[in-house]
C-alpha cells in the first residue's frame, strides 16, 4: 500500500506547491511532511512558499479591483471594420 513513501526534493516541492492551493491529498501531505523532517532545504522552501503565496494573494486582490475596458477609440475602430465587413458580404 505505502509503496512510495520516500520522495525526491522535486516531488516534495511539487506537493508543497499544490498544498498552497489546498489541493494536495492526504497521502501527498503525509509524504511531504515526512520529507520535510529530513530535508532542511525543502523545509526552507516550504516556509518561503507560504510567504510567496501571501504575496500572490496581494497581487490577486489588487487585480480583482481593476476592470479592464476597451477605449472609445478602439470600439469605434472595431465598429467601422465590422460595418465594412458586413457590407462586403
Amino acid at each position: 500500500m505505502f509503496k512510495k513513501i520516500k520522495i525526491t526534493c522535486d516531488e516534495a516541492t511539487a506537493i508543497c506547491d499544490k498544498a498552497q492551493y489546498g489541493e494536495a491529498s492526504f497521502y501527498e501531505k503525509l509524504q511531504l511532511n515526512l520529507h520535510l523532517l529530513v530535508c532542511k532545504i525543502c523545509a526552507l522552501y516550504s516556509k518561503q512558499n507560504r510567504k510567496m503565496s501571501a504575496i500572490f494573494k496581494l497581487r490577486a486582490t489588487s487585480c480583482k479591483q481593476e476592470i479592464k475596458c476597451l477605449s472609445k477609440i478602439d470600439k469605434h475602430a472595431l465598429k467601422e471594420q465590422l460595418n465594412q465587413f458586413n457590407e462586403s458580404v
Partner: protein
Amino acid sequence: MNQTNKPNTLSPNKCVDDYADYLFNYAVVRVNDSNIAKDLVQETFFSGLKSAKNFQGKSTERTWLVSILKRKVIDHYRKINSKKGQAEVRMSFYDNGEDKGNWIEERVPQSWDNEAEKTIENDELKSQLDECIDYLPEKYAMVFRMKTIQEFETEEICKELDITPSNLWVIIHRARTQLRNCMEKNWFNK
C-alpha cells in the same frame, strides 16, 4: 410574425456597445495582454458576424459570443504552447541521472533578509512580481496567472485550456520554483 422569418443578423454597432467590454475583460484576464485580448475580441466579432445565420437564438447573444471567444483563447494557448524553440523554465532540479529529483546546487533556496518587512504590500513589490512573472515562458505565465492571480478552479482551467490536472500541477510547480528564485534575487536578497 415577420421577425421570426428574418435571418439572424447582428448589428455591429449594437453588438460592440453591448458586449465588447465584457468580452475584452474575459479575454484579458486569461491572456493578460491588452493587445492580444483586443485581437481575440475582434476575431470573435468577425466570426460572429460570419456565422450569424447559424445563431439559433437558443442562448443569449452574449453566451454565444463567449463560446466563440473560448475557442479563440484555446487556440491562442495552443499557439504559445507549440511555438518552436519556446523557452522552457529554468529547472531547479536534476532531471536525470543519479541525482534525479535533487536540488541543483546553485538553485538551492537561500534564506531571505528582512522577510517580514519585505512582504508588506506596496507598488514596488507588485511591479517586481509582475516582472518576474513576465520572465516566465508564456504558457507557464498564463496557467500560473489563471490559477494564482485570477484564482480560477483547477477544473475550469483544465477544461478551458484542454490540459490534464497533472499537466497543470507540473506547470504550476515549475512556475513557482522559478518565481521564488526570481524574487529571491531581485527582491528579498537584492
